[in-house]
């Protein structure tokens, strides 16, 4: 599927003007906190770039990530960028099936050995030899260990690939792990989210195409430009948090007034993602704007981080009953200690000799 056209040529073919392409680049540049001049440079580099070969492997996943990336309501530039890369293998999107498809994968790897970007979607089950997810009789682990060494870089798309995601949620029946748990010698860019924001994926690819490098990553391997701020930092409801104005239920006065959803379990403060700035559905809205707290889906183990509706300041486990058990145990031990204290006193009183006036006359025994 790869051809030799540049991105500019491909876009022109599709009727996208240079002006709207520049606008796209400017928005990507600003998203990635680059100086405005970089937009032009980016546009030039991007336009001149050959279509980048991309291999997209789907493992233990729900296809939600791919849905997010491909299903937009109207054709948008990021979709086109996506089209403009050379998606050489994607199991769901590939036209052929069976051995042909597998052949294409093999061909893509060989043709762009060491140059293609590997996108992985879904976690990798390890339990029982990895049998819980296989493609063409090969386990996900087997496929990943075969393909990854040939890639230039790996993008782990979605929280499952990045952190293990929902398959890894307690009790993790398949022994699911993240890409980074297996692949140690390739640069891995985690783009978590359930699903991740499309423009964040395109932004990462744009960065790679223009800079030839992978962006700065945080300690969880996420591009800092998109994951540097928390939802809370960028949330339009933040002033209500600062004023201490909180919705107490989803249909109270506070909820209607659009107050902070912290007390309803919003995980915005501990969640790093770009939802509050890029928003979803073409910039229409994001969960908090539609009245629901952030679930924290771009953080590791978000499914096991207590109820979505428990405030961050509240415990995720039962504390009151443990406190009650502590009080009961403390009372029992305390009474025992009290009895021991009393017997110390009684025993001392019994054995102690009362002071007599003669004692005051003698020298003390040491």
């Amino acid at each position, binding site marked *: 599927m790869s051809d030799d056209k540049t991105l500019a040529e491909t876009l022109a073919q599709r009727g996208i003007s240079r002006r709207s392409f520049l606008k796209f680049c400017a928005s990507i540049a600003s998203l990635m906190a680059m100086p405005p001049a970089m937009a032009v440079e980016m546009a030039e580099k991007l336009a001149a770039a050959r279509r980048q070969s991309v291999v997209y492997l789907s493992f233990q996943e729900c296809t939600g990530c791919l849905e997010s990336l491909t299903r937009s309501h109207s054709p948008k530039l990021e979709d086109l960028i996506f089209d403009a890369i050379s998606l050489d293998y994607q199991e769901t999107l590939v036209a052929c099936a069976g051995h042909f498809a597998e052949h294409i994968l093999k061909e893509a790897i060989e043709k762009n050995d060491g140059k293609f970007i590997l996108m992985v979607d879904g976690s990798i089950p390890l339990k029982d030899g990895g049998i819980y997810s296989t493609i063409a009789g090969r386990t996900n682990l087997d496929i990943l260990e075969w393909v990854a060494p040939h890639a230039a870089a790996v993008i782990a798309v979605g929280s499952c690939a990045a952190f293990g995601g929902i398959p890894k949620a307690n009790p993790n029946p398949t022994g699911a792990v993240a890409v980074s748990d297996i692949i140690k010698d390739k640069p891995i860019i985690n783009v978590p989210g359930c699903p991740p924001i499309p423009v964040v994926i395109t932004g990462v690819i744009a960065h790679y195409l223009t800079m030839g490098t992978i962006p700065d990553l945080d300690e969880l391997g996420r591009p800092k430009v998109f994951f540097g701020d928390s939802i809370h930092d960028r949330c339009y409801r933040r002033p209500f948090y600062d004023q201490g104005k909180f919705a107490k239920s989803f249909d109270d006065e506070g909820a209607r007034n659009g107050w902070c959803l912290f007390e309803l379990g919003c995980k915005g403060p501990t969640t790093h993602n770009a939802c509050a700035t890029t928003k979803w559905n073409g910039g229409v809205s994001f969960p908090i704007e539609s009245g629901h707290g952030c679930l924290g889906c771009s953080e590791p183990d978000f499914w096991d981080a207590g109820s979505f509706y428990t405030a961050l300041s509240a415990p*995720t486990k039962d504390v009151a009953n443990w406190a009650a058990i*502590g009080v009961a145990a403390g009372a029992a031990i305390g009474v025992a200690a009290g009895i021991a204290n009393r017997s110390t006193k009684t025993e001392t009183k019994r054995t102690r000799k009362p002071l007599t006036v003669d004692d005051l006359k003698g020298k003390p025994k040491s």
Partner: protein
Amino acid sequence: MNIFDILQWARGTGLQIAVVIFSVGVLIRLLEMWMLNRKPDLAEPRASGTLGGWRTVFTRSAPSMVLMKKAGLLLVSGYIFHLGFFIVLFFFAPHIRLFHNMFGVSWPALPNGIIEIITILSIGALFALLAHRIMNPVQRFLSTFQDYFVWLASLLPLLTGYLLLHTSDFSYSQMLTAHLLSVELLLVIFPFTKLMHAFTTFFSRWYTGAMAARKGVTV
């Protein structure tokens, strides 16, 4: 183990462990103390000891005017810290949410701006108290490792809590984790240090007030 795992531990298992140690420890400390008993006082009282005890429980909270001249800084800082810590603990909305979640009761919160000012004042008071402890010959003489350790353990929840409201330079998750862990440290050391005075001071005042009231003295 990343910061997210530690945060989850601090919000769940860590808190459970801390609360259990706290409740077991406090109960033991109170019972082993209370069960030591007192001998009944056979001297004919001038007034009710019980009432006098309760009176002193409250009146001893008022500042001693006699000492205001000698130890004004210590007294004022002490008041600011204790009141501040109490207000921040019980009237910050997320804290109320915590109590609501654990015990099912809630009450109105103070605006975050006010909480923030009180937090800064309390932190300032703590530093004033430390300065006094270091500079004042008596306090320096009396102080042991525990006094400085408890000071630090009291400061950390306030400091991390304050930084939590100002997340620009710190990640909220890191600070929330630090905040929770510092609170858990405070809970864990509570029964085994002078922090116990938060409970026993009321017993002490009652005993002292009752013994004095029987003699007709208001203390």
